[in-house]
Structure formats: structure tokens, C-alpha cells
């Protein structure tokens, strides 16, 4: 990818007892999630990208524009065309919602019409109409966060940075706001770097993921690749799952089932009617996938897909996480399966073995399913 | 044996300290330097300690009439000690004039050796005096200027310090080019030029001392006033530029 199509960031330095040495390259579109346990340095990296923190040994090039380099160039935060959403909305207490929204908006008509995010568009996208003339102190946590997002958008950013925007909200509010974030991702062609320590948010929103731990990047790439990489903590976690992008093939209204095609096979999911050709994200939990050497006989499991074992990693005392590739030739999308060592040995499974993956439960990621 | 000696020594020490007492004296600001010398000599000769407070006579008078713990009052005028006596705060038969103040025109900026000419010429922007309402040197300054027929001309240039010390400070820092100060304030001062205002131009500034009711039973207080009348004190007073009765 050319410079104009990527976001390149690399920062190295020590802050107190914490040492940071993290760098990644992300595409300049879609959602890149910065994911890792608390204290791993995700916020530090984001603040460096924003210019709120200045580490001398730093590099930040966004869409071809140098924001910081190692030769001393450093664009101060207010000159960077970015939007930043903090964990607590931090609305200006002395301004109404409307004036908060307009605070960062450019005064001149300048680029009007050229990909410019309009006030009405943002208000509609985030359902802010009823809140416009209220004082920030009178809003709920979720409402404040929506205003904060709108405010960041109206500053016409080329890059949107979000630092755990949902973690300060309760579960119900999180569920309310996520659809807004999905709409954001789908409707605006704006790259987003999104920090979270909740894998469920990653699964619903992210295209790319950068995994961090103890100040270092331990993995970066498309979401499904990293989810099924046994070398990374995601795959071997207790609640390991993969998120696949599926295209709707057909809908069975009699039984309320949706058939989606994913790489190397099809999955049947209980879901309301939706149009053919639309995209949906599908979540498959490793513990819901069992393996068979032969096509199983009559069973209640709807989804039985041929697949090939790519790798096997022992976890805990007596369990194995197997990575499967769908399709008879093993060239399709990756799934995870968690099984006992006993089953593994009894079935004489090994890398390369052809198997049938039985997926007991499939859930649609967006708008459906629990945020684990 | 050793113990009795110790007790005896202690007793003697305590007895002699009981002899050497303190007396609290309110001293008019202009009499500061001579008062310090007199107090030091007094202490040397009698062992008593005179604790001196300096300030405006008017302020002292107000404090005394409201119960301030002074035992002796050395005023810059004669009105206030008289008022203290009349008000029952002081002993009438202790009142006497301890010094007669001399008014001086002083400048560190222009030549006032011929003071009357300098005042007439008026080649200055500010003339400093003590607040006539609060200090007798201020009243005397106004009297002198009126006697010279210059008061109306000079009035716009007058600035008042709330005490003679402050009036002095204005001239000393050259904020005011000239000022009427007490001769005693110029003791040891060589800077600038001065003109002793002829006594005919103003009523004598009698500075009276009086024993206050609070000091009626204080040996040290009475001793101080006696010392003040004595030859050694009078020599000091004269040296500092005061006239004597």
C-alpha cells in the first residue's frame, strides 16, 4: 500500500517505570482496533498519535502526511486533522450541546461538498436532535458519549481516535451505542483507531487488530487471522472465537434462518429476514465447534462443514485448540475448535487431517448475540 | 553545706532581679534616638530596664485612654499629657517638659540653607510635613508657613506623613524635595541642607512627660522620670538638638 493509504505509527520511550516500544501500520480506512490488557500501553500509543504525548523517538505518518518523525518534526495536536473521543465524554460544561458540537467545526465553507461531514448528517447518525439545546450536565452517560463522538466528527478529521469510548458506560448503554459506531464505520469513509480491552467490541467493529502487551505489539493484521493464530493469546483464551464476514445467500422465512456464505462454506444462522448480498458478521466460539472424521448421521446440528486441520496447540492440562480451514481443500476461512486431548488422540487427528466441523451455535455479531 | 550556699546564691540573685524592674514607656517618634541613649544609660546606672515603644503621640493617647499598658508617656506635645491628666489616666504632679522641639526645614535635593528664600522661590513639587492633626511638628510647620505668609502658596504642594517619622521618610527618599522635620531627626545626618526655623515663627513645641496611673506604683517608672530630669539625660537631650526648660 502506498503511503497515502496507510497510517504508520511507531513510538519508543520510557514513562516512569513503563517502557514502550510499539509500532504498526494500518490501512487508512476501516476500524483498526488496538487491543490488549489494561496497562499494556494502548492509551499511550493513541496519545502519541494524537500528539498529546510527545516521545522524542516517534514516527507518525497519516495518509502520507508526516505528523511526527525522528528528525524532530512534530505537528502540535491542534494542527492535526484528527478527532479524539475520550473514555469519559469530557463535554465542555459551559457550552450547550449544540455549541459543543460546533466547537471544532471549521468556520469557512472551504471544502464544502468534498467529503465534508455535515452537521445534519452527524445529528441524524447519532440521534442527537432532541439533545441539541440541553446543557451537558443534564445528559446521561450514553448521551454524553454520543455528543462527544459527534463533536469529534464535526471537526472534519482525517483520522478518528477512540480511547475505550464504551468502558465507562453500563452494559445496556453499551448495547445502545454500538449500533451507532457500526453506522459510523459503514457510512463514513474515515479510518478509525479504536482502543478497547473488550474483545466483543473488537469483534463487532474491527477490520484490523493490533494486539499489545506490556508496551509491545505482539501481533497485527486482519481480525480473523489474528483470532485464529495459535501463537497469540486470542486463540487460546477460554472464550476464544472467530468472527467471519459472511454474505447473505438466502433467507428461509418459514424457519427464520439465514444462510450466509463464508470462505470455504456456508453457515445457517437463526435471524430475521435480510436481503441477499448484504454482509453480516458471524461469530463462532471455539467451544461450540466439535470435530468428526466422518460425516455425522442424523443430528440436530445444522452446520456441518468439511474442513482441514491447520494446527493444534495444547492448552491447560488436557485440552487442545485446533485451527481449521474450511473447505475440502482447506483453503477457506479459519475456525477454532476446542477439544479434549483424549478426543484428539482417540480420533487420531493431526495437522492436515480432513475433518467435518460441527458448529453447534452460530450467532450473528451485529445487533444480535451477547456482548460477552 | 554546698546546698545552703546554692540556695543563698539563688536567693540573692532573685532579690537583685526584683530590684531591677522594667518600665514601659510610650515615646514620641521624634524622640527615638535620644530616648534609646537615655534608656541605655539609665539601665547602666540603675539596672532598671526601660522598654521603649515609639510612635505617634495621638495614637499613643488613644491607646492609653483605652487601657494600653504603658507606664510613662513621653509625648511630642503638651496637649496630650494634659488631656491624660484631666482624663484621670495620669498623675498631675508628675507632668513636666522634658524637651523643647526644634523645627527644621530639610532637603536632599535643593539648597535650603536660606530656608525662607527657598520656600518663597518654591522650586519644588512636594513639601512634606507631619499630619498637623496628629503631630505637633505638623502644626508647627503650618504655623511657620502662615507666619511667613507662604501657606496659601505652598498648600497645593503639601503632602502629609501620618507621623514625623514618615514626613522624614518622604524627604529622605527624595519623594518630597523638602520637608519640615524635627532637628533631632537630623542628628548624625550629613546629607542635604537644612534651615533651623526661627522660634519666633511658631509656638514652642513643648514635649511633656507624665507618669501614667498604671505606673503609679512602679519604682522603675518613677526612677526613669527622675533620671530624665537629671544632668546626664539633659546633656543627651541637648546634644540631639532639643532646647531645655
Amino acid at each position: 500500500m502506498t503511503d497515502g493509504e496507510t497510517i504508520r505509527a511507531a513510538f519508543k520511550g520510557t514513562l516512569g517505570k513503563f517502557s514502550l516500544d510499539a509500532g504498526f501500520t494500518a490501512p487508512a480506512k476501516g476500524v483498526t482496533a488496538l487491543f490488549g490488557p489494561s496497562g499494556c500501553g494502548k492509551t499511550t500509543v493513541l496519545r502519541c498519535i494524537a500528539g498529546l504525548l510527545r516521545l522524542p523517538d516517534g514516527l507518525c505518518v497519516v495518509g502520507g502526511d508526516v505528523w511526527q518523525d525522528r528528525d524532530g518534526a512534530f505537528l502540535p495536536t491542534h494542527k492535526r486533522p484528527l478527532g479524539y473521543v475520550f473514555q469519559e465524554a469530557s463535554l465542555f460544561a459551559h457550552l450547550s450541546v449544540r455549541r459543543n458540537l460546533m466547537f471544532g467545526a471549521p468556520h469557512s465553507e472551504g471544502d464544502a461538498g468534498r467529503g465534508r461531514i455535515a452537521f445534519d448528517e452527524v445529528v441524524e447518525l447519532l440521534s442527537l436532535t432532541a439533545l441539541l439545546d440541553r446543557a451537558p450536565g443534564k445528559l446521561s452517560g450514553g448521551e454524553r458519549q454520543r455528543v462527544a463522538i459527534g463533536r469529534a466528527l464535526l471537526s472534519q478529521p482525517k483520522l478518528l481516535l477512540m480511547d475505550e469510548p464504551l468502558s465507562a458506560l453500563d452494559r445496556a448503554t453499551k448495547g445502545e451505542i454500538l449500533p451507532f459506531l457500526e453506522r459510523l464505520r459503514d457510512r463514513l469513509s474515515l479510518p478509525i483507531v479504536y482502543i478497547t480491552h473488550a474483545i466483543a467490541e473488537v469483534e463487532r467493529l474491527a477490520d484490523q487488530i493490533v494486539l499489545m502487551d506490556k508496551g509491545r505489539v505482539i501481533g497485527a493484521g486482519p481480525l480473523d487471522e489474528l483470532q485464529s493464530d495459535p501463537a497469540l493469546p486470542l486463540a487460546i483464551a477460554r472464550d476464544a472465537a472467530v468472527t467471519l464476514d459472511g454474505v447473505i445467500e438466502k433467507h428461509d422465512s418459514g424457519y427464520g434462518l439465514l444462510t450466509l456464505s463464508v470462505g470455504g462454506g456456508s453457515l445457517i444462522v437463526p435471524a430475521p429476514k435480510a436481503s441477499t448480498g448484504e454482509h453480516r458478521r458471524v461469530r463462532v466460539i471455539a467451544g461450540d465447534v466439535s470435530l468428526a472424521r466422518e460425516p455425522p448421521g442424523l443430528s440436530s446440528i445444522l452446520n456441518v462443514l468439511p474442513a482441514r486441520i491447520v494446527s493444534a496447540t495444547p492448552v491447560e492440562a488436557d485440552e487442545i485448540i485446533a485451527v481449521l480451514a474450511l473447505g475440502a481443500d482447506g483453503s477457506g476461512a479459519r475456525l477454532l475448535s476446542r477439544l479434549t486431548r483424549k478426543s484428539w488422540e482417540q480420533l487420531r487427528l493431526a495437522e492436515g487431517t480432513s475433518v467435518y466441523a460441527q458448529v453447534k451455535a452460530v450467532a450473528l455479531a451485529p445487533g444480535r448475540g451477547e456482548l460477552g | 553545706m554546698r546546698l545552703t550556699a546554692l540556695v543563698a546564691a539563688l536567693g540573692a540573685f532573685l532579690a537583685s532581679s526584683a530590684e531591677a524592674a522594667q518600665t514601659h514607656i510610650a515615646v514620641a517618634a521624634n524622640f527615638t534616638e535620644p530616648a534609646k541613649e537615655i534608656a541605655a544609660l539609665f539601665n547602666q546606672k540603675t539596672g532598671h530596664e526601660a522598654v521603649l515603644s515609639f510612635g505617634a503621640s495621638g495614637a499613643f493617647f488613644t491607646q492609653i485612654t483605652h487601657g494600653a499598658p504603658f507606664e510613662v508617656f513621653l509625648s511630642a506635645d503638651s496637649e496630650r499629657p494634659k488631656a491624660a491628666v484631666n482624663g484621670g489616666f495620669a498623675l498631675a504632679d508628675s507632668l513636666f517638659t522634658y524637651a523643647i522641639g526644634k523645627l527644621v526645614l530639610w532637603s536632599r535635593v535643593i539648597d535650603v540653607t536660606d530656608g525662607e528664600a527657598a520656600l518663597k522661590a518654591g522650586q519644588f513639587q512636594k513639601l512634606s510635613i507631619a499630619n498637623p492633626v496628629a503631630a505637633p511638628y505638623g502644626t508647627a510647620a503650618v504655623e511657620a508657613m502662615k507666619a511667613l505668609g507662604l501657606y496659601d502658596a505652598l498648600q497645593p504642594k503639601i503632602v502629609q506623613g501620618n507621623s514625623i517619622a514618615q514626613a522624614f521618610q518622604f524627604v529622605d527618599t527624595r519623594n518630597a524635595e523638602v520637608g519640615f522635620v524635627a532637628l533631632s531627626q537630623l542628628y548624625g545626618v550629613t546629607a542635604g541642607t537644612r534651615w533651623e526655623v526661627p522660634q519666633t515663627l511658631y509656638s514652642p513645641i513643648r514635649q511633656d512627660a507624665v507618669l501614667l496611673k498604671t505606673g503609679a506604683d512602679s519604682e522603675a517608672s518613677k526612677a526613669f522620670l527622675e533620671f530624665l530630669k537629671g544632668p546626664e539625660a539633659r546633656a543627651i537631650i541637648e546634644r540631639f538638638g532639643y532646647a531645655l526648660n
Partner: protein
Amino acid sequence: MLGLPSDIWVPIQLTIELAAITTLSLLVVATPLAWWLARSRAAWKEGVAAIVSLPIVLPPTVLGFYLLILLGPDGPGGAIASLWGARTLAFTFTGLVIGSIVSSMPFVVQPIRNAFAAIGDRPLEVAATLRASPRRAFWTVALPLASPGLLTGAVLGFAHTVGEFGVVLMIGGNIPGRTRVMSTAIFDFVETMRWRDANMLAGGMVVFAFAVILSMILLEKRFARARA
């Protein structure tokens, strides 16, 4: 005015003028200073804070003495005064303003500094991410958020100047119509035993200051409620 003789009314007017001008000047001077004190990480900033606070601790006689030198022909005051043919800023209303500014400064700087510090970093970071330059962030975010502190500083500065006695006495020269403010006028009345006039002036001073402070406090409360 108000049927009061001029030797009572003029000091009142002078005092109000002095307090008003001092307060406004202080707001202009103290605000950037308070901002710097609140935000700077310079090692010597608390030293500066201590110097600013000195007037609270120093006796007025000491303060007045140093001011006399500063305002006089040997100091910067004299240099300024020479611009219009005078020798010194002492004995002038301007000199009183300067003296009052110095002596009331700590009362104005402290609440404003606290207000700025209470804002914290976040609102300013937010402003920066919304394209606000540091200057714009100061005027449109920091200052409005700190306005209760500025109000408090203004009230304290005003009240302190009205009551200021020592410094005025030291550098004013008690010139009627120019530097004879309420405090020195009261002093004169007491000296000449005009108790009635002294009481009237002093009592009026207390009532006025009380009214100003009370109304400012109520205004501040109204401000805070509107924001919550």
C-alpha cells in the same frame, strides 16, 4: 452629594475609584500570572508564588517603605513620572493604584490560580483535538470554566483595597481629593476626635463592603447552579 459634606463624600468617591481601578488592573495582571502558576512545570514557580504572597505577610510599614523607594525618584516610578515632568509616583492616585495592586495581588492571584488548576488537563486536551490553538483554548475554554475563580478574586481584591490602610498611609501623603481615601480620612477624624464622622465613614465602609461581597457570593452561586 447625598447631602454629605465634601470631606466625607470625597474620600468615599476616591476609595471606590481606587478599588475599582485596582481590581480591574489586578484581573488583567493576575490572570496570566495565575495561569502560568497553575500550568507551569518550572522548578522555580513556587518561588514566584511565594514572592507574590509576600504582601500578606509583610507589615504595611515594610511594604510601604519599599514602595516609597520604588515609586520615588531613584526608582522606576520616578522614571515614569518624569515623562510628565513629575519626580515621583508617590502622593499620586497612580501611586496608590500601584501600591494597592501590590498589596492586594495575592488575594486575587490565589483564587484564580486554584480555578485554573481545578480545570485540569482534560478540557484543554479536548480543545486541542478540536483544532483550538493554545490561545483559543485559553479564551474559549479555560477562562469561562475558571470564571467563578475570577469573580472570587475580583471580590477579594476589591474588598481588600477598600480596607487597605497601611500601604495607603505610607505612600499617599493624605492629599485631599487625590490620596485622602476613606481609611486615612477615618484616621484623621479619630485623631481630631471627630468620633461621629469617623463612625459614619467607618460604618458606611463596612456596610458597603458587606453588600458588595454578599451580592458577589450570590451571583457566584447563581453561576454554579446554572452550570450544574
